[in-house]
């Protein structure tokens, strides 16, 4: 077997450089389509999670990053703010339900300015296929049970799955997943009621303070 000499090393280095160059080209070619897809998905979600025709700004760009235990994450999470002629009309809060059956469930919670819930969507999860993944809109209608919830009229005891005396359906064989989401949405609603002013006070920032990322949408996948 040949020993590795300088020539072999140079060949390996040159091949690596070529590989990197090829990947850079592919990255540059796909960057714009990927960004557009992410932006479209975000726009679509935001439109469903805010009251229609209640705003005339660009919520996807009017973002602020806040950090709070109620939002379920150590990292600052993004909040999209809707305004009509500068007046706050609603917000979409990215939150995390950390106690899903297989860990984190990432959510978008849409709220009116008064604090009622317009809707909720799951943006990422690892729940068991066929059992816990009914939280996806393409699998079942369950997540729509958060549509237009008058938070002020609800008792704390209602924020539970039916099995525990609450108002939300559980899934056959899977209680942990819906319970995690119900509890997370409840916390977000309470947090929002108490911190609403602060949410809209902040100047728009496209990244968390101290972060080097310049992608405003990067935090949601």
């Amino acid at each position: 077997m040949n020993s590795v000499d300088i020539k072999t090393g140079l060949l390996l280095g040159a091949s690596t450089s070529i590989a990197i160059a090829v990947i850079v080209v592919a990255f540059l070619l796909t960057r714009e389509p990927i960004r557009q897809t992410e932006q479209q998905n975000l726009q679509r979600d935001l439109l469903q999670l805010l009251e229609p025709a209640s705003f005339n700004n660009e919520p996807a760009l009017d973002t602020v990053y806040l950090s709070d235990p109620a939002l379920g994450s150590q990292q600052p999470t993004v909040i999209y703010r809707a305004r009509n002629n500068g007046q706050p009309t609603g917000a979409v809060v990215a939150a995390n339900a950390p106690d899903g059956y297989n860990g984190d469930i990432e959510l978008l919670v849409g709220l009116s300015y008064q604090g009622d819930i317009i809707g909720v969507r799951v943006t990422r999860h690892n729940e068991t296929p066929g059992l816990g993944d009914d939280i996806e809109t393409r699998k079942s209608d369950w997540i729509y049970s958060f549509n237009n919830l008058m938070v002020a009229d609800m008792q704390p005891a209602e924020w539970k799955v039916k099995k525990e005396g609450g108002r939300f359906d559980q899934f056959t064989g899977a209680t942990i997943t819906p319970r995690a989401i119900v509890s997370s949405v409840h916390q977000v609603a309470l947090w929002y009621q108490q911190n609403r002013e602060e949410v809209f006070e902040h100047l728009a920032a496209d990244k968390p303070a101290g972060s080097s990322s310049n992608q405003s949408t990067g935090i949601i996948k």
Partner: protein
Amino acid sequence: MNASNEITLVNLAKEGLWIENPGLVKLLGLCPLLAVSNTLINGLSLGLATLATLLVSNTLVSGLRSSIPPAVRIPLYVLIIATTVTIIELLMQAWLPGLFVTLGIFLPLIVTNCLILGRAEAFAVRHSIRLSIIDALFMGLGFLLVLSLLGTAREFIGQGSILSDSHHLFGETARDWTMQIFDKQHGMLLALLPPGAFIGLGLLLAMKNGIDAALSQRENNNH
């Protein structure tokens, strides 16, 4: 590979699809095979991505085989495979985002699929580009067929449908291709979970061995 066999298109096809099938005989790439075969579309998609990677890597390894020093051939294979997979991943993220999300970690993990490295080392590095492409095609197809077969069985038994989420792979026009044979509620959940994957693959293996045994018995009787 059987040394006495002449390398012809027909033989390569037989090897890839049946005799040396990567999924059922070589048992290569079991991790993605078991994890992603929960629906037909998922299995088919990963099969296609693996097939594409295998075609590119076999072609490059075969084309460069005269300039690949034996001492560093493995790092070079890995470099070629990893580059190919990264590019496929970027393309899929850009143009098939639904599929990209569904396949998740198993897309980058194609790099570690022994099938691809195995074909580079066992075949592409010692044969012409033409033969290497044919080999990649049939080995990839063999893997794809097992993935699709297992995916179909698990999806049908587990959730009573076939071709669910086909729009992830074929675009919006395919959204209503899904056939719901019986209600999802009555599906056997086990089939969708990891144990179902093992049991399903075991049954496929048994079936293949059974067919092989029957064939060889018939051959013996003829003599």
